[in-house]
């Protein structure tokens, strides 16, 4: 007879309010095989865990059920407690009566009945649990950082400084990310480039860092400590080893009118280009869509339409025939730092977003977004830091900023707050005032969210010292009247409609995850939310981990983040990675499949459905060495424990430890009576 202990947690009032925990404990006590059943206010607390440990000792328990929160929350906690008493940790399980019961039901009687049934089902399952040993796996002590904006750079440097090799993959030709485009940063107004570029150089020169720019992660296989990553190095058309970054190629390029991505379309670049002067590495790339030679080739021209850059290059570094190549890397841990994109003010909108037709869909040239304003205000920008109208180059004397464009607007497809816009709009009004002394900045806002060290003070400074006029209200329409933009709005504090003239309008558009992030998440087997931001494992206690072991999150790929937040997250991921690498072997849960060779007929259906190739062939021989049969075998180091093999096996000769048929049927039988 089993000797199972049941421990029902009140979770303060979280469970106790809707579930009668004492009744749950009482009813469970009468079940056959239950030797002990109690309830307690906080089972996860130290005294709570002591109750569990004491009962194991005194009642000689051989199984433990903690009825409390989700196993995702505290299964590890209780398994540790159980193990400390010498009981195999896999004889302990949790019954979820908080997330799946007390929090979602109001009827106390029904919720209590449900809690009892859920506990009973787990009790029956645990009766069939067997002791399991954790699996030890080796660790490749090399990290991969995806994305080299400020978050990726910080994470990579912190890991590399810890003495571990780091591979950094950046999709753009240069590292630096969005931060390199910014003029000055809130709340200190220090120059973005001045604080970022030294870090970029440090990364480039770090002996532990292998930097792969203009490249993307194509495939990821394996598991924590043992990932195999395939990286596509896109063809630069320039031999990076020969190039010395002299810039003669770009000077020679006849196509000088390509809109510059770095300058958000406000400036131009050549077809062979370095994104910006401080780019790292300082190696150009040919934009094949804009290059006359490649366009000629695409049309099928026999002769090269242009080869000016190759002629100009004294080091013969230009290689028009360069192809994409693939780099394979063995990786132990992955940090995702892919950052964000801005809600487009153009007409083309992704599914689910409606865009802002009322603001002219970006057809009014002097309606720009926040990043374009950054480039105008930046000393390295297309205007050398002069704030002028894109349409006629005149200085705008009346500038209007609209906050929450896309953000906090469920009707337009995004309900979340983009977090940084209140602050950067305040910054923009200051930068504007510092450059256009006789100009007037007006801000239309919903609320001012300035929570952060020095943030509220910064916003007050914009209003009180730099004279920004803040109007609480929404703008309903922007339209052109000759040279001016008419701003039609409503002041929700005074209740007055407003019609005002502006020379330039800046839209603080929402932060969205990078395009293609879902594909990357699928490659990594990590989950993402309905907007495409990566999901953290726990919003409070595991904010930089994903639910996929060995994959960590830094910066705006997880949710809108400002620079200090992104840097803090990045350092946190580095701590996690270095902690993981401090051991030579990792422990993994023993949820793996095992084959009963006496039953296996060797049909190998399991081999065909296994996503990991964990099934091997095992030859069974008699004493004389004659082959009796070939059966399936599972490599426990490769098996990840999905159990697809077991559901597929016609003879039921493969079983997933922890989720055997015996256990599941026992759970089903106990649920419905």
């Amino acid at each position, binding site marked *: 007879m089993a000797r199972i202990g049941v421990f029902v947690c009140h979770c303060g009032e979280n469970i106790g309010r809707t579930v009668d925990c004492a009744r749950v404990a009482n009813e469970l006590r009468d079940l056959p095989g239950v030797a002990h059943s109690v309830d307690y206010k906080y089972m996860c607390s130290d005294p709570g865990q002591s109750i569990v440990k004491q009962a194991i000792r005194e009642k000689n328990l051989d199984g433990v059920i903690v009825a409390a929160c989700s196993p*995702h929350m505290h299964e590890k906690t209780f398994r540790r407690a159980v193990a400390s008493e010498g009981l195999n940790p896999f004889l302990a399980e949790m019954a979820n009566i908080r997330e*799946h019961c007390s929090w*979602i039901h109001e009827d106390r009687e029904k919720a209590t009945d449900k809690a009892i049934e859920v506990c009973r089902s787990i009790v029956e399952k645990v009766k069939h649990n067997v002791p399991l040993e954790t699996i030890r796996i080796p660790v490749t002590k090399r990290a991969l950082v995806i994305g080299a904006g400020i978050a990726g750079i910080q994470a990579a440097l912190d890991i590399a400084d810890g003495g571990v090799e780091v591979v950094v993959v950046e999709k753009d030709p240069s590292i630096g990310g969005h931060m390199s485009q910014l003029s000055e940063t809130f709340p200190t107004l220090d120059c973005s480039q001045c604080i970022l570029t030294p870090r970029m150089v440090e990364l480039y020169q770090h002996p532990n860092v292998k930097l792969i720019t203009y490249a993307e992660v194509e495939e990821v296989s394996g598991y924590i400590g043992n990932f195999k990553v395939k990286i596509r190095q896109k063809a630069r058309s320039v031999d990076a080893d020969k190039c010395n970054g002299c810039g003669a190629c770009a000077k020679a390029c006849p196509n000088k009118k390509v809109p510059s991505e770095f300058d958000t379309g406000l400036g131009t670049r050549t077809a062979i280009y370095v994104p910006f002067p401080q780019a790292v590495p300082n190696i150009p790339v040919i934009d094949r869509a804009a290059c006359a030679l490649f366009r000629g080739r695409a049309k099928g021209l026999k002769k090269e339409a242009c080869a000016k850059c190759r002629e100009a290059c004294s080091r013969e570094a230009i290689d028009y025939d360069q192809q994409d190549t693939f780099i394979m890397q063995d990786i132990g841990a992955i940090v995702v730092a892919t950052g964000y994109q801005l809600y487009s003010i153009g007409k083309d909108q992704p599914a689910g977003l409606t865009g802002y037709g009322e603001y002219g869909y970006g057809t009014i040239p002097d309606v720009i977004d926040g990043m374009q304003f950054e480039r105008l205000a930046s000393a390295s920008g297309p205007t050398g830091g002069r704030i002028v109208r894109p349409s006629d180059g005149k200085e705008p004397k009346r500038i209007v900023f609209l906050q929450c464009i896309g953000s906090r607007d469920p009707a337009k497809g995004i309900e979340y707050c983009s977090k940084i816009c209140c602050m950067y709009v305040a910054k923009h009004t200051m930068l504007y005032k510092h450059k256009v002394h006789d100009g007037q900045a007006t801000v239309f806002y919903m609320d001012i969210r300035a929570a952060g060290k020095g943030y509220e003070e910064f916003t007050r400074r914009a209003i009180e010292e730099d004279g920004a006029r803040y109007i609480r209200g929404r703008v309903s329409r922007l339209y052109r009247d000759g040279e001016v933009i008419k701003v039609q709005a409503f002041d929700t504090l005074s209740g007055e409609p407003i019609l005002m003239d502006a020379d330039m309008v800046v839209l603080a558009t929402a932060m969205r995850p990078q395009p293609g992030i879902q594909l990357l998440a699928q490659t990594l*087997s990590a*989950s993402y939310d309905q907007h495409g931001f990566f999901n953290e494992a726990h919003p409070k206690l595991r904010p930089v981990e994903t*639910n996929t072991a060995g994959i960590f999150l830094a910066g705006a790929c997880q949710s809108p983040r400002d620079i200090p937040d992104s840097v803090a997250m990045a350092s946190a991921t580095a701590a996690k990675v270095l902690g993981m690498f401090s051991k030579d072997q990792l422990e993994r849960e023993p949820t793996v499949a095992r084959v009963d060779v006496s039953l296996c007929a060797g049909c190998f259906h399991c081999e065909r459905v296994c996503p990991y190739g964990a099934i091997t062939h095992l030859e069974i021989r008699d004493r004389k060495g004659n082959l009796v049969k070939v059966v399936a075998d599972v490599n426990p180091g490769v098996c990840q424990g999905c*159990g697809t093999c077991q*559901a597929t096996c016609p003879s039921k000769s493969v079983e997933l430890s922890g989720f055997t048929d015996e256990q599941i049927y026992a759970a089903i039988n106990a649920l419905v009576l």
Partner: protein
Amino acid sequence: MAETSNGAFEPKVTAFVCNWCTYTGADLAGTSRLQMSPNVRIIRLPCTGRIDPLFIVKAFERGADGVIVSGCHPADCHYTSGNYHARRRFALFLELAGFMGIDPKRITFSWVSASEGGKWRDVVNDTVTRVRELGPFTAYRELAGKP
């Protein structure tokens, strides 16, 4: 099947869900305090790929009035492809359900991701409402000669 004190039919629904998407999505529904029907009991499995169609039959045999099977969306499977195997398996199973005396309307297949707490609530409520309309599942009890 269960009856409350006033004799009204209260359906029992067993849900087989994967650990990574739907179980976590149901956790999120809890964290978001989304109120839903208390008639569903969840059995957690690593992946929908682990779900043997016989689990469903067993649940009905034991007296469930409805079953939910839910996992990660196509392409989002934590184990890369377990949900595809599940999808094929259950497309076939639904064809056979009628033959086994189970009205396919009693079974819900769904994809609920870790961020879709609201969708999980809808799946739960819709299934319970549908099964309530269908009435108790008695076919197997009658076969076994039970009242």
